[in-house]
């Protein structure tokens, strides 16, 4: 029986419950429910299906460890607008969906990238947490980066168990990752400042259809190459035998370096803490003579061309041959960009007396010392260089990125792709890197100044001045700016 004494607290309790209940009910209407979904479901909803088990396993690890990253979850990654970076960006949402880390990709053309990143790093502004660097620019950046080994030690619990520096292509790691670079794979010393990100390598692009129609084989050495150029140059029909990168300082130097190595010469030698210009040797003189002998059969507009414009001439069907960066190969078979779809083939460069050599300018990504998002940037960098990620980048039709991780090459999908014509350029670069037949320019301090001087004298030789005299004067002017210390 309810007495008056009992009734009062009961009624008060009911009233309080009613008040709280009604308020809670109103508030609940305004909040959304929390849904719990697996990472695989989240990725599938974003259209990311068919991902490999290994990659998913890595993403699940990322999802778990990224919870430990408290502060600093917005790393800014500065990359150059080249095919590897753009392909990475296309799948970068995987990293975001797995970790919730809001990484920002700041992708710019090379000259803008260098000036933007160096100016902010130089004044100590922590705008970028990870920065891509061309191998020959590393001297400009080295003091701003934390060695990767230190990062691995500092963030042991944020380092993937299967991450292994030894799995990176040894050539790419030694010439791009290690500073000072190791020109020989078995050399000791140096620390890893950059993780190799891409491996731009120059190879021989040629029109397969033209050679098939003529019943000829492509040239094997520079002598045959020039003979073929003579035969194929038909300016009256709007077709030139080739085009050259004479308009760009970096372009003409890197293009020539393929010849220089094949004749047994060197433009620079890496000494103990100093880079010596040695480009006045007989071998380099001979290489430059052969290089300039191509001029009569090249598109005369080569005087204003760089690698982009040579690639454009190739994909528009205006030239038959090009010594060009493999990164452009994907464009040749893109119907939206190319008039020579399925007509271009790839091979090693023509050989000189010392064999066939290929200019290599890899780039890598370093972690900035004063970064406020270092742990998040480290997770991002592991994702960007992880084997599963790299398999997708290689198979990406719009990039065909050369693998920088050795394990990528053991993947069945990659092995199968490398046998297909569309991936012929990747196969050629793989063979080049495996054989170590690379031409290389060491990390130059004041690189812009040195390239400017070299471009000036090489263009003069290309236009007809004496190669020996041009190279002697080039060396003297480079020496006049002081020792190239690194």
């Amino acid at each position: 029986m309810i007495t008056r004494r009992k009734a009062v607290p009961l009624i008060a309790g009911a009233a309080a419950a009613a008040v709280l209940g009604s308020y809670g009910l109103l508030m609940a209407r305004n909040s959304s429910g929390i849904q719990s979904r697996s990472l695989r479901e989240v990725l599938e909803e974003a259209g990311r299906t068919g991902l490999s088990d290994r990659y998913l396993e890595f993403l699940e690890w990322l999802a778990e460890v990224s919870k430990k990253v408290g502060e600093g979850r917005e790393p800014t990654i500065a990359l150059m607008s080249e095919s590897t970076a753009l392909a990475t960006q296309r799948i970068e949402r995987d990293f975001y969906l797995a970790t919730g880390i809001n990484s920002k990709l700041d992708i710019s053309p090379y000259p803008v990238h260098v000036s933007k990143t160096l100016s902010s790093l130089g004044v100590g502004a922590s705008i970028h947490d990870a920065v891509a660097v061309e191998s020959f620019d590393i001297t400009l950046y080295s003091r701003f980066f934390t060695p990767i080994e230190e990062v691995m030690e500092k963030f042991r619990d944020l380092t993937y168990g299967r991450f292994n520096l030894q799995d990176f292509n040894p050539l790419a790691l030694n010439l791009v990752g290690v500073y000072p670079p190791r020109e020989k794979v078995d050399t000791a010393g140096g620390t890893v400042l950059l993780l190799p990100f891409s491996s731009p390598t120059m190879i021989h692009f040629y029109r397969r259809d033209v050679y098939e129609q003529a019943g000829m084989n492509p040239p094997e050495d520079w002598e045959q190459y020039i003979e073929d150029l003579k035969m194929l140059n038909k300016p009256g029909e709007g077709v030139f035998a080739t085009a050259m990168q004479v308009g760009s300082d970096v372009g003409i130097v890197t293009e020539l370096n393929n010849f220089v190595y094949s004749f047994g010469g060197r433009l620079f030698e890496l000494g103990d803490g100093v880079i010596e210009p040695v480009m006045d040797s007989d071998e380099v003189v001979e290489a430059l003579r052969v290089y300039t002998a191509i001029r009569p059969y090249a598109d005369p507009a080569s005087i204003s061309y760089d690698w982009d414009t040579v690639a454009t001439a190739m994909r528009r069907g205006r030239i038959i041959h090009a010594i060009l960066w493999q990164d452009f190969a994907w464009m040749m078979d893109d119907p939206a960009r190319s008039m020579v779809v399925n007509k271009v083939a790839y091979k090693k460069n023509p050989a000189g007396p010392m064999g066939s050599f290929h200019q290599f300018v890899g780039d890598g990504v370093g972690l900035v010392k004063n970064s406020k998002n270092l742990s998040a940037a480290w997770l991002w960098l592991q994702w960007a260089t992880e084997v599963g990620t790299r398999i997708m980048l290689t198979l990406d039709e719009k990039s065909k990125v050369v693998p920088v991780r050795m394990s990528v090459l053991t993947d069945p999908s990659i092995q199968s792709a490398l046998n297909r014509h569309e991936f012929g350029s990747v196969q050629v670069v793989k063979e080049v890197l495996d054989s170590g037949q690379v031409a290389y320019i060491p990390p130059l301090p004041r690189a812009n100044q040195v390239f400017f001087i070299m471009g000036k004298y090489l263009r003069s030789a290309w236009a007809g001045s004496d190669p020996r005299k041009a190279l002697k004067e080039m060396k003297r002017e480079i020496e006049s700016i002081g020792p190239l210390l690194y």
Partner: protein
Amino acid sequence: MGTSKYRLVIDLPREVVVGGELKISFTLYLDELPPLKHYSGYVSVTFTLLSEDGRTMARKTVNNHIQDYKVDYMYPGHRWGPYTITINPDYSISSSRAQLYVTLESEEYVEDPLGIPVIATRPNPTTVPVGEIVLVQVFPLFETVALGLSVAVAVSILMYWRIKVRKRTV
């Protein structure tokens, strides 16, 4: 020069309490540019909230030149965001629901071999409806407590009166 494809993913509350802020999260993906274009150098996203009778309750624009949203180049594949913006609608405009529209503007560039932009094109701005938001009239805590207490007092009086009546009957 071809078609560009942008994808805007918006996280929008179904309801907003009248008097409160409206928080909208968005991410813009640049999925595709025509082959001849290299990047988008300027994007602007404008959110417009309209009442049932078409009056503007709020408008907010963000673009990639604003410091907090800054990015210089957007190449195909770029993810801009997620960002969360706060909008304060004009609640003096009476409406039980509001419609959110978003307008996208962009400038797309072709660059020369040195990376210098040489041709800028401005595709026609596109406006699309995003969704409807219910404007909820919620009693604030004080009013809710006052109302609840007055109901409780009324119920107490009623029950006390019934107990008293039952006792008297017994």
